């Protein structure tokens, strides 16, 4: 900048490691260390949670201890480097995809500007290509001939504690949303690179509490909240009472009922935390409306799977309860509620990990006769598919005017959109339950949807600023439809979204509600024998 005073303007006030000195980076990225300070990292896992998980059969979570990312000494095992390199070697051998992803990137940069973390921070290490490079540089150095001979010249670098800290910083500044993968000409799934980084870190006892505690709860009681069966039941019963107060209809739900046609599994946040509660009320009303023969399970009481954010062994173990419970109860198939990463696990991994579910039948709706051939293998149908089919076959009595208070837009949750292609069903439902809804700009929806910024276990309040940064691209698109079309409701099909988008809106776009699509269905349903109060705000109305 040619103006001398201007050049001093920022520098003269704050010197030091701030990003904001107006200067072009002078150091090579490899020479910029990760610095941990309050607000830029999620809290480390509690010792007792790591100990508990490590004590479980088939799980490996070593090196439980008191430590802090802010400390110089992370109390790593003495042979930590050997453990990491051996772990990487094992994974390169086990997962062919990882080997390919390490080798085939040509650093074209197509992914670089597609990551919401990069777009919100301007930190180059949040460019997916560079985030992957954090691992790839080690791979090159220790696993390729070029790297072994030429080292840094070939893009390799030695594994050091500094590199490990950098891995921790940036593998938890990725929500595994896979938007970057959509743009990669080679189809590199950068989310899987992040998954590998996190797996490797767990080998030396480096993980975050917001993932490991829900995961250990889930292993113990079946759900992230640690709810025991009686509490889970109580909560659903509470919701049924609320429905009765609002609509005069007493829903018929059951728990752990053997011989039911369908087992219903949804994220526990739906029966527990605001605003997911209203979505759960929507499910209860819908199933009552069509007289579905279904049961909840107080054991498979969690659709979400935080194992996905740790390592494949824990993911497999936590997922296993779905089929186990379906088998125990003798149901024909499973319906799953609105959740994001749950569907990635179901759609992409469940069959391989815990299938084949040959004791179940290919899902066929007893109400419409439709066979869900897309779920022929997993035997598990998404609630939006199920609902859209009911609407298409004219099985629902819907009154859109009951959503007159809603002017909606729809956020495609990353995993349903990109990991299972569930894109048109929620839109079809919206067409039939609200008078009017609008799309956000094209490059922020469907396969190109922007993440809420807090997925993969980053939905924790100590990193609120970081979450607001990474959620900026999503919030920015929502603001556009608020300004242009007076939108007041952001609908979605993901439990984590319902929690995180609420905070995101409260910061960026105050006054914009967040809801599940099933809540809007519940609002619009005309129930037999109803004695409905004036519900100006649908199921959220205080009566």
């Amino acid at each position, binding site marked *: 900048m040619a103006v001398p005073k201007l050049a001093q303007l920022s520098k003269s006030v704050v010197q030091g490691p701030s990003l904001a000195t107006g200067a072009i980076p002078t150091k090579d990225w490899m020479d910029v260390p990760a610095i941990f300070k309050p607000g830029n990292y999620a809290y480390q896992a509690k010792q007792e949670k790591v100990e508990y998980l490590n004590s479980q059969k088939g799980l490996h979570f070593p090196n439980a201890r008191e430590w802090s990312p802010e400390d110089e000494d992370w109390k790593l095992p003495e042979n930590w480097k050997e453990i990491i390199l051996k772990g990487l070697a094992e994974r390169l051998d086990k997962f062919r995809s990882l080997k390919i992803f390490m080798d085939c990137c040509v650093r074209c940069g197509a992914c670089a500007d597609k990551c919401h973390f990069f777009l*919100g921070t301007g930190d180059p290490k949040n460019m997916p290509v560079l985030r992957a490079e954090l691992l790839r540089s080690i791979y090159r150095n220790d696993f390729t001939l070029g790297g072994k001979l030429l080292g840094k010249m070939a893009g390799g670098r030695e594994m050091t504690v500094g590199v490990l800290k950098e891995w921790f910083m940036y593998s938890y500044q990725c929500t595994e949303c896979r938007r970057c993968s959509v743009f990669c000409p080679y189809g590199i799934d950068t989310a899987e690179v992040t998954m590998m980084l996190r797996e490797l870190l767990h080998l030396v006892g480096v993980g975050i509490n917001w993932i490991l505690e829900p995961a250990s709860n889930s292993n113990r009681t079946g759900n992230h909240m640690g709810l025991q069966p009686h509490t889970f039941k109580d909560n659903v019963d509470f919701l049924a009472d609320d429905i009765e107060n609002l609509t005069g209809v007493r829903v018929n739900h059951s728990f752990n009922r053997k011989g039911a046609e369908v087992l219903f599994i949804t994220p526990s946040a739906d029966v527990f935390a*605001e605003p997911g509660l209203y979505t759960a009320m929507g499910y209860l009303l819908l199933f009552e409306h069509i007289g579905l023969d279904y049961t909840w399970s107080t054991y498979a009481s969690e659709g979400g799977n935080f194992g996905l954010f740790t390592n494949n062994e824990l993911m497999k173990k936590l997922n296993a309860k779905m089929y186990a419970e379906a088998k125990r109860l003798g149901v024909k198939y499973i319906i799953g509620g609105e959740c994001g990463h749950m569907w990635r696990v179901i759609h992409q991994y469940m069959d391989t990990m815990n299938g084949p579910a040959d004791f179940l039948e290919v899902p066929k709706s007893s109400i419409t006769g439709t066979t869900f051939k897309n779920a022929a293998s997993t035997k598990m149908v998404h609630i939006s598919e199920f609902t859209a089919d009911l609407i298409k076959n004219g099985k629902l009595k819907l009154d859109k005017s009951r959503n007159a208070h809603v002017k909606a837009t729809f956020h495609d949750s990353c995993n349903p959109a990109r990991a299972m292609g569930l894109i048109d069903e929620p839109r079809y439902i919206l067409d039939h339950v609200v008078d009017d809804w609008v799309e956000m700009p094209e490059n922020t929806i469907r396969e190109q949807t922007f993440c809420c910024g807090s997925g993969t276990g980053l939905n924790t309040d100590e990193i609120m600023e970081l979450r607001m940064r990474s959620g*900026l691209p999503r919030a920015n698109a929502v603001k556009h439809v608020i300004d242009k079309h007076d939108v007041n409701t952001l609908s979605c099909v993901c439990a984590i979204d319902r929690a995180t988008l609420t905070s995101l809106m409260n910061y960026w776009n105050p006054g914009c509600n967040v809801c599940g699509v099933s809540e809007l269905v519940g609002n619009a349903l005309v129930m037999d024998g109803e004695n409905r109060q004036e519900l100006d705000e649908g199921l959220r109305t205080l009566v």
Partner: protein
Amino acid sequence: MKLDQALKNQREKIVDQWVNYTLSTYESSSFFKKETDKFANPVGGNTREALSALFDLLAKNADPQEFVVPLEQIMRIRAIQEFAASVAVAPIHAVKHITREILAKDKEMRPLVAELYDFEFAVDLAVLAAFDLYMQCRERLYQVRIQEIKTGNYILTDSKCPSNATTMLKTNIQQSIQTVENH
């Protein structure tokens, strides 16, 4: 030439430099400067939009109340990024120096530099307003954090007995909703 005419003529050049300077405060800023689609590039797009609007207001000596909308657009972003407060606000100041420099470089416009007092005073007011907005955004951030804690997410990790907490929460929820709505 009159000052207002000069500012109008030089608008594009000044705003370009101003946006460029502001975006240079990001470590990796070439994409932020280059991409014009606001949805593909929220930081760059909003910065350009906000500073363009703000410049027009400054140039026409508008009511400082009107600065709030464009300032909020930019400060809401900078308030949650990894900037010291001074650095978050500093770019608003920059337009003074840029304008002065551009006018001074041109022989015909050079005498107008002496007339910049009102314009620069308007910038001073904008900087002060930006600081208020920065603080409001920080406050909002803390409110959001408190609100999230109230709605029950914390029970995932910070409750000794989730089962008890559930019952408690049930009674607290309506209160929380009310708080959000009032907020």
